[in-house]
């Protein structure tokens, strides 16, 4: 009898252990799957070999600006040159920009096929064999889809030239707006609820309401943003009111609308986190401040807030990192599907890192999956460093107060 009970205990312990193992396995698989797509061999075929473009056996990188323009004019149609000149005169562009154009348009390497990291490690010979039969001119090259070019170049319809520069800037601009709105309002609301509010019906309604809001699906906030910021407040959010946009083309689908929408989304979380932080401040601290004749606001400003600031900061950064990863509300608010110009103010059209990942993942071609994986790594690194910053900042501030 007792033996049976004992065995049953072992079996279930194993089951609990197994479920933990499954959870961790999924995390590992998720990361491996992304890394697997972000690196690997590719077979590239150039339209024109770069060595043939530069004279006297120079490499393209050493060539003068004028020669690069010459190469462009020689190989591209007049219409295309005119379009480039219209966008920004070729003579005024920097050498790196011109070089990029030459590579993209003239050398025009085409990735014929790409392999995942696993396939690359296991079967380089197969890849070479594929090249020999399908593209004898092709070059087999190991490609890190996540590279410096990928981070510094703007969006492009060709996957091998696409980058996340615009998306990164879009994300950063948006976080700025989100923070500027949600942080002060959230902390202020938390101070009110913890320090000022009387335990009456209104307070209870506000509190219950905040908890309910934190459970509302993010896509609903997107609908709210679409109706309020994009549509109703269009003159304001498009910048038309401030002379940033022509009245006819004004459009509320801007960084400002997106940032405010996400601000509303993380507001309840910031309030709840800040409330917990403020609640953690011992009452004795307040009492001694009052005892020295400080007013309520002086007490809060000089004692309660500094004492809880490390935890408020951590909570805020964690909420902001949630905003950075949000996708659905931004699609609803109207992120642009394709922009290659850096946003330069809050009334710019925008795209963000998660939006890019979504759009690239949704494409059927394999190469778009590769750059989606590379963008995911960039996003995860961004989020991880934000969280690491939160932890370091918390420890530093905490230590300072103790020391």
């Amino acid at each position, binding site marked *: 009898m007792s033996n049976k009970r004992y065995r049953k205990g072992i079996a279930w312990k194993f089951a609990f252990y197994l479920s933990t193992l499954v959870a961790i396995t999924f995390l590992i698989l998720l990361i491996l*799957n992304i890394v697997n797509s972000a690196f690997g061999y590719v077979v590239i075929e150039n339209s024109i070999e770069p060595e043939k473009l530069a004279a006297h056996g120079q490499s393209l990188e050493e060539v003068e600006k004028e020669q690069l323009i010459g190469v462009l004019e020689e190989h591209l149609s007049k219409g295309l040159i005119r379009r480039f000149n219209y966008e920004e005169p070729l003579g005024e562009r920097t050498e790196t920009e011109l070089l990029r154009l030459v590579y993209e348009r003239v050398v025009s390497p085409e990735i014929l096929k790409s392999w995942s990291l696993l396939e690359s490690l296991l079967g380089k010979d197969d890849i070479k064999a594929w090249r020999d039969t399908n593209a004898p001119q092709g070059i087999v090259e190991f490609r890190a889809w996540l590279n410096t070019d990928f981070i510094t170049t703007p969006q492009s319809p060709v996957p091998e030239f696409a980058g996340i520069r615009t998306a990164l800037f879009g994300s950063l601009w948006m976080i700025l707006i989100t923070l500027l709105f949600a942080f002060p309002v959230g902390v202020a609301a938390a101070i009110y*609820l913890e320090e000022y509010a009387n335990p009456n019906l209104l307070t209870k309604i506000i509190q219950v309401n905040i908890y309910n809001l934190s459970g509302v699906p993010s896509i609903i906030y997107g609908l709210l943003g679409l109706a309020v910021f994009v549509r109703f407040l269009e003159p304001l959010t498009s910048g038309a009111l401030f002379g940033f946009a022509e009245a006819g083309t004004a459009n509320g689908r801007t960084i400002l609308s997106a940032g405010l929408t996400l601000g509303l989304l993380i507001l309840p979380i910031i309030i709840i986190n800040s409330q917990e932080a403020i609640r953690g401040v011992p009452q004795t601290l307040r009492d001694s401040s009052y005892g020295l004749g400080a007013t309520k606001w002086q007490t809060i400003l000089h004692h309660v807030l500094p004492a809880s600031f490390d935890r408020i900061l951590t909570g805020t950064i964690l909420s902001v990192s949630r905003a950075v990863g949000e996708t659905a509300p931004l699609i609803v608010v109207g992120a642009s599907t394709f922009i290659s110009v850096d946003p330069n103010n809050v009334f710019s059209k925008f795209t963000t890192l998660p939006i890019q990942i979504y759009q690239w993942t949704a494409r059927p071609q394999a190469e778009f999956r590769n750059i989606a994986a590379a963008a995911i790594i960039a996003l995860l690194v961004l989020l991880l460093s934000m969280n690491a910053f939160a932890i370091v900042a918390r420890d530093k501030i905490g230590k300072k107060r103790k020391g």
Partner: protein
Amino acid sequence: MIGNELQKKKRPVEIAVSSLLFISAVISIFITIGIVSILAEESFLFFGSQEVSLKEFFFSKKWQPMINEFGVLPLLNATITTSTIAMLVATPLGIGVAIYLSEYASERVRSILKPVLEILAGIPTVVYGYFALTFMTPLLRVFFGRDTVEIYNTASAGIVMGILILPLITSMVEDALGAVPASLREGAFGLGATKLETSTQIVLPAAFSGIAAAFIVGLSRAIGETMIVALAAGAGPNFTFNPFKAAETMTGYIVRISGGDIGYDTMDYNSIFALGLLLFLFTLVLNIISRIVVHKYQEVYE
């Protein structure tokens, strides 16, 4: 006397500050009012139009706004399918992990595992969507055959959604288990119960309200989840009970329609708000139920 005078003294800064703080707190109420009134207003336009009747909305099995077919069942059915699969994955796994962490794991193991789960919880949903489409779907196709499993399917989306919800359920259940006093466990051990008997027959029932709340909150999260289904479950309403077939959920539809350029006051525009209202009501009811469960059935120990 002096105290009285001080109390009566007008302090403009104090008054200004406290009013500002109050306004900040009240903003949250306006968010709710905003959500409800906007969803209600646009839904009213939707249901008020001649093409849509409530009866059709709730009973017709066709959702094709292009040709004036407005039956929500295919979208709703897909939402229920993905959420059910997600809960089937997340509930047993989540509770299993929580029991392991709270009852079995050593302090050292806990200190490693908890941050790992937090990482899992912090990964953006679009990344899970990528995982569903590029890993889970091919895996399912290997197991069940390429002919049975479509490229977009609700099973893959549901399973990955389960992994997404798992850390949420684990942390809520673990909190609930942790709230059960040690004296209860010691009492059971004292009567000769094994560790398993203590965990399943004493601790789990005592933490039941918390576990139920975790389940409901997880479910509400699953219903509102968007990016995984938008990427992996398929684009295009389809009334099917086969989890290996593509079917668009309510959230998936909202994302697909609003991702294109939609004009204001069109049927498409109004329809996403009507679905939003339905979604909002579902999650609101679930959240309220979870709170009631916690308050009503919570065991209180000295």
